[in-house]
């Protein structure tokens, strides 16, 4: 029985988890770095333990310290949130060894899905559609070129252990292949110390559609509909919504079934996300599976009415899923905007500093997940997301209106934010028409530069 949870994270997600626990009567232990003594999660939790200096490698990534803090505080479970140790096989394995409940999937599952080539093979064998590409790891450009010829250009070269756009390059044709391959491989070698690459057909102008799934220890797997996360800048999501404006009920059913099949193939447990690329034709391909709660989970919560964090804790505690596939009905429309401490005028350079004054909107259908407060100093060491502004209305048009209105009310003084940038996107006719794909922001920026 889970009675006390240690939250191995910071910022808004730590706050989100503390709140869910508190509502369930579960005690919470926050861990914090020396830079986060004044952070909201540190103050909000029932107990807080300092786990090291500011750099995350010495604090939020310090497994030994976090395990010790768990034992010392008497917590029986760890919620890893997202980022940091959330998809770290070794950390999950350590928790298992120490009888600590890791709120997430089994370490072996994390390991299998974390390796992209292996994940793809698992999915292909289970009959989940995947992008045509190399099945085996590729280490040199000449072998890669043969494979690329079979797949058909354009192709994308990717690192097996990649992420966040690192170690990825597109080759439009054979002439550009060597350059693309070598650059991507060099990058991944530097970033991850591994030069395993794979190559696949490059899907042009797709939407990034992901399906939330929930699975319990008893083999029940349910999907909770999709999120359209196509509004991205340099592979960083900016706006997410559910449901997707262009997915029909029929397509949703097919994609949902594929997502469930994928989760079952991976013997998945707890909350997870299956990422697909959706082409205009309606073809969709499995991209990867994220083995954690996602930043954008609130949009799913709002259209399904299910509290995903609480459900995660129940599952980790050994409960059966509290709903079936039939129970899941998507109602209304939810949109999330990420508010970051960055300056869009200066190439989105991060902007840590002290928030001198702030006002955040509210009202019906407005939700704010954040960890900032007036007088809070945003430290320079971590991710620069300040808040998530989520709105809900009965349809997409009204939700967009509500988001426009809410963004117009956001006041954060003392540091630069991307609020105005988001406000502009919400007024973009293409966005409003649902006519956007993962190139949307890049194209928009290119156009603005010219104009």
């Amino acid at each position, binding site marked *: 029985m889970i009675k006390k949870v240690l939250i191995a994270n910071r910022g808004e997600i730590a706050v989100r988890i503390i709140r869910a626990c508190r509502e369930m009567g579960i005690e919470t232990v926050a861990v914090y770095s020396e830079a986060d003594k004044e952070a909201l999660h540190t103050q*909000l939790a029932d107990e807080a333990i300092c786990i090291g200096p500011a750099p995350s490698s010495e604090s939020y990534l310090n497994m030994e310290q976090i395990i010790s803090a768990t034992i010392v505080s008497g917590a029986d479970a760890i919620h890893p949130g997202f980022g940091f140790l959330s998809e770290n096989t070794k950390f999950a394995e350590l928790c298992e060894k120490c009888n600590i409940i890791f709120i997430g999937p089994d370490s072996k599952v994390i390991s299998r899905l974390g390796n992209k080539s292996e994940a793809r093979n698992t999915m292909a064998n289970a009959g989940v559609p995947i992008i045509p590409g190399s099945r085996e790891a590729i280490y040199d450009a000449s072998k890669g070129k043969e494979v690329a010829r079979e797949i058909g250009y354009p192709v994308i070269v990717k690192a097996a252990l990649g992420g966040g756009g690192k170690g990825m390059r597109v080759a439009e044709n054979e002439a550009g292949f060597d350059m693309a391959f070598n650059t991507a491989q060099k990058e991944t070698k530097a970033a991850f110390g591994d030069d395993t690459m794979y190559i696949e057909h490059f899907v042009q102008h797709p939407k990034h559609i992901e399906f939330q799934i929930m699975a319990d220890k008893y083999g029940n797997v349910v999907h909770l509909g999709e999120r359209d996360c196509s509004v991205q800048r340099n592979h960083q999501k900016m706006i997410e919504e559910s449901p997707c404006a262009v997915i029909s009920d029929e397509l949703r059913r097919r994609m949902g079934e594929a997502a469930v099949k994928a989760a079952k193939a991976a013997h998945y447990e707890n909350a997870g996300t299956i990422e697909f690329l959706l082409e205009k034709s309606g073809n969709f391909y499995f991209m990867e599976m994220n083995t954690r709660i996602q930043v954008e989970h609130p949009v799913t919560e709002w259209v399904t009415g299910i509290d995903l964090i609480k459900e995660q804790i129940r599952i980790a505690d050994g409960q059966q899923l509290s709903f079936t596939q039939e129970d899941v009905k998507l109602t209304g429309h939810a949109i999330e905007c990420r508010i970051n401490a960055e300056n869009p005028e200066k190439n989105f350079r991060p902007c840590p500093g002290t928030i001198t004054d702030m006002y955040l909107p509210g009202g019906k259908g407005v939700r704010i997940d954040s960890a900032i407060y007036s007088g809070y100093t945003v430290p320079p060491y971590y991710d620069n997301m300040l808040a998530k502004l989520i709105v809900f209305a009965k349809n997409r048009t009204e939700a967009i209106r509500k988001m426009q209105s809410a963004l117009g009310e956001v006041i954060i003084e003392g540091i630069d934010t991307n609020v105005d940038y988001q406000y502009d996107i919400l007024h973009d006719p293409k966005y409003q028409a649902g006519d956007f794909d993962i190139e949307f922001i890049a194209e928009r920026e290119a156009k603005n530069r010219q104009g």
Partner: protein
Amino acid sequence: MKLSNMFKKTSRRGYISLGEGKPVHMAPEVPEGLLKKCNVCKSAILTEDVKKGYYICPKCQNYFRVHAMRRIEMVADAGTFEEWDKGLTSGNPLHYKGYEEKVEALQEKTGLDEAVVTGKAMIAGNEVVLAVCDGRFMMASMGKVVGEKITRAVEKATGEKLPIIIFACSGGARMQEGIHSLMQMAKTSAALKRHHDAGCLYVSVLTDPTTGGVTASFAMLGDIILAEPGALIGFAGPRVIEQTIGQKLPKGFQRAEFLQEHGFVDQIVERPRLRETLAEIVAMHKQGAYDLPEVEEKETQAVQKNLTPWERVQLSRDKARPVGAEYIEELFTDFMEFHGDRYYQDDKAIIGGIARFHGMPVTVIAQAKGRTTKENIERNFGMPSPDGYRKALRLMKQAEKFNRPVICFVDTPGAFCGLEAEERGQGEAIARNLFEMSNLQVPILSVVIGEGGSGGALAMATSDEVWLLENSIYSILSPEGFASILWKDSSRAKEAAGVMKLTADQLLKAGIVERVIPEPEDFNLETFTEVTDPMDDYICIFLKKYGAMTKEELTEKRYDRFRRM
């Protein structure tokens, strides 16, 4: 706004029971042995990370002490270790109370029968004798058994003509065995002297801590002495010294880095590199026949005739001119630098070590000017101290022992002129080199690549052949000095350069040097190979010619070379 203690905490009364009478899962606990604490940074660390990471703290990089058997696993080829002389016991020569019980208890605890493990193993396919001290056993102090096992291992190595590698780690002599323990110092040293005289290799690896009678015997006698980073190495322990002199010791005192700086350690080797370093050393000391490429003597290009001697002097000092370290890098492979004179310090104005020339092991020594002002300050602008000459001589004697030719690169304004240099015997150090080099039993080649200033140059050029680059100079002293002594006016250096006959072609005509290597007009790193490519050929020719001579012919010829001057 300050948030401290402003929020309400979780109410346990609101607890929504999750489980419905399900068995409570086991309480969280860290299983025995999963985590350990670093004794230096005090961080909790995963035992497995430590084991996989060469027993180095993943957080603070501190080196943990390694048990003998694990050390052997880390260094030797898997499954090749064959242990010798198990089960030797010393008894209790002083009838020291409780000694036998203590030894027995340690035998039980460690599974060892004494503080050193000896035997034979392969490292990267090369057979070696190993002796590894284990600090768990009375701090690996040297009693009769330790002394005996090491001595036997050395004797067997000598008998089988094998290299021996000893991993030292010790608190010193074993007090409980009294004077018997002291005698082990002489016994092991005597065995190593025979090993040395038989021309066999001994590599000493100093690990934390190496102190007392072990430092003062076998540990410091290696042909090559390696040390692990941060290892405490000394004769008297730091606490004893502090008590005796009543002063606090500086940070880093008696650490491996301190010893290297003071000339007692050839190289500090990080643990992950130790196995390959040892393998390379052993491989370079293997006797073998080496075939150098066939090279034909070419017509030497005409030199740039229209330069004045003073212009050549200036070119010899030009900043863009490649320096000693760059010749080593360009002409040789697998260079392994050895530091120190084993007396006082490591002089950075001289770089030396072993390397391969077309596969053949050679000893390379270079007077080292720096590339930048910062490096020049560190290297004292290429002006060696007595310690530098003593290091060079030490490496030459080592080359003689292992029958390796010696190749020197000369580039110095002169031997360092300073208080400390005189205190430590600059004159004696130079003289000693001339004395010993004149009869060294292996070929010596010296190439003057820049300035060949006076006795400071000659101390690395009492050789079989001396070559000059076209715009190098070689002289009794600098033109400035010459003008100052003879004409009491150092500003007449330009004039002096003309009088001194210090240019390459003048020296060749005078029979002082054997060869002049032409330089391109713009001599720098970009045009470097225009000099090193022909030099490579000439070195092949030199090594073949002198390598074919008997030792008597070689030294006789060298004697004559100077005798007729």
